[in-house]
């Protein structure tokens, strides 16, 4: 289902339109698809953190101490925790898409399995990363 649309240069762009969401039974696979996009957008903004951290390290001890103070604070840790989860969730979602690109994993059971694996795998990897972080610091 496509709709004709032109951009500012007058070039035609065909983008798939979403099916009517109202006729869909809420399904985990659908929620995971939406979550993939939301975590992607969150990571897009979250990359500011990595750039900020690297610039702070390179700028000197004062800037590094400031960044470390912010990231070690409770809100800072909260943001980092959210970033970690979004990262692993999106990472596993990406693996799911690569599997789909090979033409596998489209059976209903397989789709459900991949959705569950993405959801619980993301949570498990996030927990594991923070346990390791606490053991090392």
């Amino acid at each position, binding site marked *: 289902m496509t709709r004709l649309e032109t951009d*500012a240069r007058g070039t035609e762009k065909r*983008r798939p339109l979403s099916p009517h969401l109202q006729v869909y039974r809420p399904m985990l696979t659908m929620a995971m698809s939406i979550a993939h996009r939301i975590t992607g957008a969150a990571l897009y903004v979250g*990359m500011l953190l990595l*750039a900020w951290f*690297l610039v702070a390290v*390179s700028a000197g001890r004062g800037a*590094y101490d400031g960044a470390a103070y912010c990231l070690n604070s409770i809100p800072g840790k909260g943001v980092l925790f959210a970033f970690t989860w979004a990262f692993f969730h999106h990472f596993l979602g990406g693996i799911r898409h*690569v599997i789909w690109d090979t033409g596998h994993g489209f059976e209903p059971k397989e789709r459900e399995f991949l959705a569950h694996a993405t959801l619980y795998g993301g949570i498990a990897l996030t927990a594991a990363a923070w346990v390791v972080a606490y053991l090392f610091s």
Partner: protein
Amino acid sequence: MRITSSMLLVLSIAFVAVIMSLLGKDYAAVRAELRHPLPVILLAFFILACIYHMKLGMQSIIDDYVHHAHLKEWSLIANFVFCLSIGLASVYALLRLSLA
């Protein structure tokens, strides 16, 4: 998008490994770690693949949700500038660290 996402599957693992190697280290140790070529090259590779992936991903979000022609044009420009800035700032910092 598919090329960058496949690359990022591998580079993300490298990214996690580099970040893990920085955990619990003080300022001097973090700097020392980021003077080695391997973590710096892996981080730079990861970040470059990331910003290209980010640009493409945000572009499809804009294509899907922004229908006003001018707003769309400006959104695409802002997307490009944002991703480029993240990339330049990060790579600049990495070069400065590793060449210091």
